[in-house]
């Protein structure tokens, strides 16, 4: 009982401070995170591009998810073996997946494709170049 009251008092004091009332939420919002300022993405590294775009649907572990339909898993995915396929899908989209060709540069697309092809149980070492992406735009 005494302990519970003490906690309430502490929380009551915390709420007076010019902070978000929910301490966990305050932590969530204080982590550094890139926000793009226009229609195109500002992120540059493959890791950050994956974390800020791809994982929205394919999830943090790249395992995808299923509801009425499915977001395919990118983990240990043999479709990624041929590098041209993921490049084409990111540039032009596929079925419901939106095309990202106009929202990402050649370098960004190369970076994120290379990241996915070398993580999540994928180990395809033939790196994609910006030139490959440029060719795929045609």
């Amino acid at each position, binding site marked *: 009982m005494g302990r519970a009251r003490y906690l309430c008092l502490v929380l009551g004091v915390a709420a007076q401070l010019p902070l*978000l009332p929910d301490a966990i939420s305050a932590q969530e919002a204080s982590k550094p*995170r890139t*926000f793009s300022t226009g229609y195109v993405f500002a992120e540059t590294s493959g890791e950050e591009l994956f974390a800020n775009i791809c994982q*929205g649907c394919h*999830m943090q572990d790249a395992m995808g998810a299923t509801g009425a339909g499915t977001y395919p898993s990118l983990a240990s995915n043999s479709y990624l073996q041929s590098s041209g396929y993921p490049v084409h899908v990111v540039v032009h989209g596929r079925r419901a997946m*939106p095309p990202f060709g106009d929202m990402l540069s050649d370098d960004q697309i190369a970076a994120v494709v290379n990241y996915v092809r070398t993580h999540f149980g994928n180990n395809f070492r033939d790196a994609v170049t910006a030139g490959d992406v440029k060719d795929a735009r045609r």
Partner: protein
Amino acid sequence: MRDKAQMVRRRDLLSLIGAMAGSSAMYHAMTSLGFAAESRYEGRIKLEGDPRGASVLILGAGLAGMTAALELRNAGYSVRVLEFNARPGGRNWTLRGGDRFVELGGLTQACEFEEGLYINPGPWRIPYHHRALLDYCRRLNVALEPFIQLNHNAYLHSSRAFGGRPQRIRAVQADFRGSISELLAKVTRQGKLDEAVTSEDQEILLQALRSWGALDRDYRYNANLISSESRGYAKAPGGGLSAAPTPSDPVVLSDILKSRLWRYLQNFANYNFQTTMFQPVGGMDMIGKAFAKELADVITYNAKVTGIAQNDGGVTVSFVDTTTPARRWTATADWCVCTIPLSILSQLPVQVSDATKAAIDAVPYSGSVKIGLQFKRRFWEEDEAIYGGISYTDMPIRQIAYPNTGFNRSGRAVLLGAYLFDGANAYEFTAMPPAERVARAVEFGAAIHPQYRDDFECGIAVAWHRVPFTLGCSGDWSDEARTQHYRNLCQIDGRIVLAGEHASALPAWQEGAVLSALDAVLRLHERVVRT
């Protein structure tokens, strides 16, 4: 997506036309640019002729599916509806205190709003010209109230202009209009419009600019009581000894132009957003619930469709009950109206022609995020005199929309703390865990309303790419895909016809879903009574 960049430029142009020439000029410009797609509703449909006991299986109990079910049943068909969710409505959806929402990936949010408070994660406003939807609201006794799109006392905010201080819409609009009127009056009086405007019309134009732009007798837009009548006063008119008003200082044109705040004015001029707009009293899902009440005996919930087959004799749909998914079920009918979003339908084995299949595969689904935030009090009303409407910002949250109901009450209220549609930020917010989406919305919103820091209580965030029953917000047709595939998507394919906002020229609007369903059942019925 390339045409999206063009669209933004076209919209900038439209907002300028709207601001300079008024909404009627803007309407004509929009019509010629293909923006003002009007609802074609011509009143309640008549399905004449005897369907002779024909049966129709309808996939999806959203507004399209339930419109089709209602009309076909009234015309004498035997109908059955399969719905993935445990509730009717689909994207016609409201989250209230006590609701839980599990998004794709499994993260669960408990909505902790006070009783009676809600957000509409999907559609939230109904234009007056969406006549079909309004007619169903009337027929189904769904009470409506105004949705306030333009509140002159809400804000336009740029993090890179005016020191980050939000500006009242009233003042930005008046100053932009006043400055442009002053410029136009100046060139008119310098004779620079002599070739384009007759001298008689120039006289009238000058009168109009003075009236419309709140110019003084010298055609100047200045700090005086004339301009203050539009943009607001430094000290408003009062009573007694200190009654006299004091004029406020207009912002100069260069500052308005560089702030880019003018770009938000299109949100008040656009045909889709002109007053009067409506919302159902108590939440958007009142519409879906009202449809479902009529159709209670024909809707099967928790039915996840796994395949659609057809032959000369009819349609067979396989599905699982999501509460006991091990067992497979089939349903058969003479015909099928399929309103499953293309994001899902494109993944299913569907027995249709190559052309229809190509159309189903041709439409990406856009991202959108809405975040509802509950506060201890209506500080936007109490402190800032903002009663309903929307503030627009260049921050990633894009909008803060105030509740259009319960005005002037004390106690808690919920506002929409973010509404992102398309663009990079929608993806960035979708990729966050829900708790972070809420926290970020509070953090950004506090730049406009510092009261957030003391008064925020709880929130809920819906990212549409994470919504299990749609995998996206709405069909995002490119112009090329629409030219190539749209007619094929809408054609009756054997015994199957598609309907939904994706099969309309009003993408992402409920009116599009309803009109597509009406068009589909009209054509289907014609085929049934003819054969």
